[in-house]
């Protein structure tokens, strides 16, 4: 294994600035969308008193989950001692930070009172998993920053394993916290499951790695850096295993529910009768889990860059669909306020005859969510342009300790 050299991202000026301009435009549109919603109030969104968290939450939670997962690549290198992953660590840490910032911005800009963020930072109710998450998120940013410093500053290298270990533990707690936002909700049929926390962790592994692979391939391709078959083989197999694990957790979650009669109505809603939610659920399972697994483990497709790109894109789209089903369908399904009874009239949309609440996302919500992704990418591209995050080469002879 040769010595790894890192260099700033050296694409041409017009390419770099062009990229930033495109992302900047997307961010500006997202900013105006947020301002529009904040100025008018949430009536301009599709959100109601029934579906209180809308599309921004879908994007925000996806980004936050993906952020913790993006750090995995670094963890495998420094915590689990896999030498081949070491050169990938810096980008992994950077993506963990930028994705989290993107997700948090979307989350904060969707608050009813975004200007009261200072209240959220200074007034805590420690029984709330939300309050804990504020600490977990801010702490994650700080810890990963320190971890990056130990990776990038030669004098600090001896501490990188310890920092990496700490960051790894922290990210597990963080994703547990994110999953628990839903897991702790006793009121709604689709939530209130301890499985939510580990399921979110496994989802983070898959989504984070899919984003990582796409960013790695894009940045390397654009500058003409070499991405060898060995490293790609490792990463795509890992993605395949993670996606399989997401499939397993999804299956266990729904099969467990199907066993208990009290959940039959909810499962029928998700799996069979839920319209758009049912469609998205099966799209996420078939298109976002089974199909990418098939591509990644296919003897020819799995070895092609196109195949890996396709699979990663499918995992991300499938992930967004899964999040949409968890966040929106979980709210749209009526609450079981009167067991053994059917609501036949209501003055507040309680689900007459078990009907689900409607929700049609507005364009502004969608644009705000997309803006979160754009912010994460923009910050990543600026980061790799200014500092040495990317290895010069990931060719087989550079990364493989056993290369002849």
């Amino acid at each position, binding site marked *: 294994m040769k010595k790894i050299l890192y260099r700033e991202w050296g694409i041409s000026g017009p390419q770099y600035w062009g990229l930033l301009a495109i992302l900047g435009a997307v961010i500006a549109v997202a900013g105006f969308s947020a301002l529009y919603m904040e100025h008018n109030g949430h009536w301009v969104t599709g959100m109601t008193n029934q579906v209180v968290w809308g599309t921004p939450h879908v994007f925000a939670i996806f980004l936050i989950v993906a952020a913790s997962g993006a750090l995995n690549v670094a963890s495998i290198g420094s915590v689990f001692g896999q030498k081949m992953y070491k050169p990938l660590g810096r980008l992994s840490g950077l993506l963990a930070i930028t994705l989290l910032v993107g997700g948090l911005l979307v989350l904060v800009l969707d608050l*009813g009172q975004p200007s009261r963020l200072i209240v959220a930072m200074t007034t805590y109710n420690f029984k709330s998993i939300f309050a804990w998450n504020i600490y977990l998120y801010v702490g994650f940013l700080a810890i990963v920053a320190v971890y990056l410093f130990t990776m990038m500053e030669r004098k600090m290298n001896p501490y990188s394993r310890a920092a990496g270990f700490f960051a790894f533990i922290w990210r597990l707690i963080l994703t547990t916290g994110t999953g628990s936002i839903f897991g702790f909700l006793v009121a709604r049929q689709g939530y209130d499951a301890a499985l939510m926390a580990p399921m979110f962790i496994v989802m983070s592994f898959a989504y984070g790695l899919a984003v990582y692979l796409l960013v790695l391939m894009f940045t390397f391709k654009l500058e003409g850096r070499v991405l060898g078959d060995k490293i790609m083989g490792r990463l795509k197999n890992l993605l395949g295993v993670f996606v399989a694990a997401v499939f397993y957790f999804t299956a266990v979650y729904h099969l467990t529910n199907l066993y208990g009669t009290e959940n039959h109505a909810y499962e029928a809603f998700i799996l069979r009768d839920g319209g758009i939610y049912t469609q998205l659920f099966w799209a996420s399972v078939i298109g976002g889990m089974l199909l990418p697994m098939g591509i990644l483990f296919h003897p020819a497709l799995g070895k092609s860059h196109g195949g890996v790109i396709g699979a990663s894109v499918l995992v991300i789209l499938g992930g967004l669909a899964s999040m949409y089903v968890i966040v929106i369908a979980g709210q749209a399904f009526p609450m079981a306020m009167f067991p053994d009874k059917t609501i036949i009239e209501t003055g507040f949309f309680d689900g007459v005859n078990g009907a689900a609440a409607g929700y049609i996302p507005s364009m502004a919500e969608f644009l705000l969510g997309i803006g979160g992704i754009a912010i994460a990418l923009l910050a990543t591209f600026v980061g790799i342009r200014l500092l040495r995050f990317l290895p010069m080469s990931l060719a087989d002879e550079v990364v493989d300790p056993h290369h002849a």
Partner: protein
Amino acid sequence: MQKVDQKRRDFVSVAAKATAATVVAPGVFLQSVAQAAPRAEPVTDDVRYGLLIDTTKCADGCNDCVAACDQENGIDQLLKPEGASDALWEQQKPRWIRKVKVQDNLTGKQTDMPVMCQHCEHPPCVDVCPTGASFRREDGIVMVDRHTCIGCRYCMMACPYKARSFIHENVQSKTTVAPRGKGCVESCNLCVHRRDNGEKSTACQDACSEGAILFGDLKDPDSKISMALAEKSTVQLRADLKLNTGVRYSGI
């Protein structure tokens, strides 16, 4: 030596004093007013306020309690924003109390009842609120501190009774007893202003000509509500959650 501009000094001095007086005086004044009023006395847990809903008396098609609540708490002052669709607005405007009609799956028996915040002893909305804006008073009333509510809506996700509403629009006018603002969550607070003024009822109770709603102190054995609870068989909604609600239902 430079000549001192005394006029300018005097002006600055007067301006500073005037500014200080403008800033400090209202606070001092408000403080003294607040201290003078009995409502400034801390609420104690010597009482626990609650409601008893007798569903056998709740009339089919009657919406009087809802209308009274809307008026008392200024909900009827909220207007549909210009350009909003009617159908969507119906789902976005706040509702503190609503009428629900349920039918028993086995017997087909139909029951009418009002549903509002159940004022739990262990409220999930209070547990999940990140800032503590959602809180339970010592006297059992669960409500929202609109100064610290950041509008995250996690309490709405957590409430098993769908009792909470989010203010989706700019507020043009409101009552002094129920101040509200865009981007905050709110719900039934058992007409808390009436508690502070020493009144003994809620707007919904006053409006119900059938006497289906009874407000009172659950801890006072001699109160009407306690005596009625001792006589009748009552239930809590979602009793399986063991939230020990302050609102009880009979006849379901």
